[in-house]
C-alpha cells in the first residue's frame, strides 16, 4: 500500500519535473512563446485592414477574429510539442519512464498551455480594445479563453503526437486538429456574442467546461497511445 503511495507521489514529482523542465526551456528560448503571441496580434491587425476599420463591423466580428486567431496561434505552437523531444531523444526517456505515460503527457500538455494558450489569454484584452469588442463582453471572452485554450492544447496534442515522425508535418497537424477545434470555437464565440446581445451565456460556459473535462480525461490516453505507436 505504502509502496503504491510512494510510486504515485514520485509520479507527481516526475510531472512537476517535466513541467519545470519545459518552462525553463520556454524561458531560455522565449521565441516559442512570443511568436504565437505576435502572430495573433498580426492576424488581429489584418482584419481591420482587410475588411473595414468600421467600429460597428469590427465589434460584431471581434470575438470570432480573436478566437480564430488564438486557435491558429495554438496550432502553430503545437508542431514542436513532441517533435523537439523526438529529435533529441528525450521522447525515448519519456516512454521509458516507469510512471504512467498519460499522466506525464498531461503534464507536458499543461506546460504547453501555460506557454501558449495562457499567454494568448493574457493578451486578449488588448486585442479586444483594438477590435472594439463591447466592454461587457470582456469577461466572457476571458472565461471562454481560459476554459477553451486548454482544450485546444489537449486536442491538438493528439495530432502533434500522431505527426511526430512526419517531416514538415505542420499542415498535416492543422488538417487533423481543426475538426476537433470546431466545437470549442462554436461555443466560445457563441458565449461572447450572446453576452453582447445581453443574452445568458452560462450554458455555453458549462459546455466548454464539459469539453475541458472530457479532454483532460480522454486526450491523454489518445496522446500516449499515439506516441507509443509512432515511436516504434
Amino acid at each position, binding site marked *: 500500500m505504502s509502496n503504491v503511495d510512494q510510486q504515485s507521489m514520485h509520479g507527481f514529482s516526475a510531472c512537476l519535473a517535466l513541467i519545470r523542465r519545459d518552462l525553463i526551456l520556454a524561458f531560455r528560448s522565449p521565441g516559442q512563446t512570443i511568436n504565437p503571441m505576435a502572430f495573433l496580434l498580426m492576424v488581429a491587425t489584418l482584419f481591420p485592414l482587410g475588411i473595414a476599420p468600421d467600429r460597428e463591423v469590427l465589434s460584431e466580428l471581434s470575438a470570432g477574429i480573436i478566437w480564430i486567431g488564438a486557435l491558429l496561434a495554438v496550432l502553430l505552437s503545437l508542431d514542436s510539442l513532441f517533435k523537439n523531444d523526438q529529435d533529441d531523444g528525450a521522447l525515448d526517456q519519456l516512454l521509458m519512464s516507469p510512471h504512467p505515460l498519460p499522466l506525464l503527457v498531461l503534464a507536458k500538455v499543461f506546460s504547453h498551455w501555460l506557454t501558449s494558450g495562457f499567454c494568448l489569454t493574457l493578451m486578449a484584452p488588448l486585442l479586444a480594445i483594438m477590435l472594439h469588442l463591447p466592454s461587457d463582453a470582456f469577461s466572457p471572452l476571458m472565461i471562454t479563453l481560459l476554459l477553451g485554450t486548454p482544450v485546444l492544447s489537449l486536442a491538438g496534442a493528439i495530432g502533434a503526437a*500522431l505527426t511526430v515522425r512526419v517531416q514538415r508535418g505542420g499542415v498535416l497537424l492543422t*488538417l487533423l486538429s481543426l475538426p476537433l477545434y470546431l466545437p470549442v470555437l462554436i461555443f466560445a464565440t457563441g458565449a461572447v456574442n450572446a453576452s453582447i446581445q445581453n443574452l445568458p451565456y452560462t450554458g455555453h460556459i458549462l459546455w466548454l467546461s464539459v469539453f475541458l473535462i472530457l479532454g483532460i480525461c480522454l486526450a491523454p490516453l489518445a496522446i500516449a497511445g499515439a506516441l507509443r505507436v509512432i515511436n516504434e
Partner: protein
Amino acid sequence: MNWTFFHKLGSPKWFYDISGKWLPWLQVISLVLIVVALVWGLAFSPSDYLQGNSYRIIFIHVPASFLAQSVYLMMATAAAVTLIWKIKLADMALKVMAPIGVSFCILSLVTGAIWGQPTWGTWWVWDARLTSMLILLFLYIGIIALRGAIHTTEAAAKACAILSLVGVVNIPIIKFSVDWWNTLHQGATLKLTEKPSMAPEMLWPLLLAIVGFYLFFMMVMVLRLRIEIISRERKTRWVKELVS
C-alpha cells in the same frame, strides 16, 4: 470462446478466395437495384407538390449521405479491430474504405448544392446538415493524409486507427455543436428529408436506392480490398503462385 472463425475471417488469403465468389453476385445485385430504384424514382414516382421534380435528386443524395456517415462508422469499427486484435485485414479495410467514404461525402455535398439551387435559391447554405457533412469530409481527408505521411505500414495503420477512433468520439460532439450553432444563427431551416410522411411511391424507390448503394459500396470495397491484399502480400508464396 473459440476464435478460429475470427482468425480465419482475418486471413487475407481466405478472404481473397471467398470474396472472389461473392464479387459477381454483389456486382449484379447492386447494379440491378440501383438501376431499378433510379428508373422508378426518376421516371415513375409522382412529383412533389412543393418542389416539383427537383426533389428527385434525393434518390442519389440521401443514399450518398447515409453511406458517407456509415462508412466512417465502419472505419472506426475496423480501427478498433486493428488496435485490439491487430488483424491486418482490418487495417487494409480501413485503408481502402477511406477514399470511398470521401467520394460519397463529396457526392452528398455536390448533390446537396445542386438541390439547394432550385429550392433555396443558392448553392450553399450554412445549414447544420451541410456543415456537419463538410466537417466529416475534413475528418476523412485527415485520415487519408496521415496515412500518406507515415512511411512504415504498421505505424501508419495504428496511427490511422487511433485517429479514426478519436474522430468517431468527436462526431457526436461536432454534430451537437453544429446543431446548436445552427439554431442560434438561422432559426428553422427547410427540413427537406424529414418529411413527416413520405408518399410510399417515393419511399420505396428511395429504400431500394439505399440498399443498392450499400451493396455498391460493398462491391467497390471488396474490389479495392482484393487489390490491397495482393499488394501487401506480394512476397508470399500464394500470391506469387496466383500471379504467375
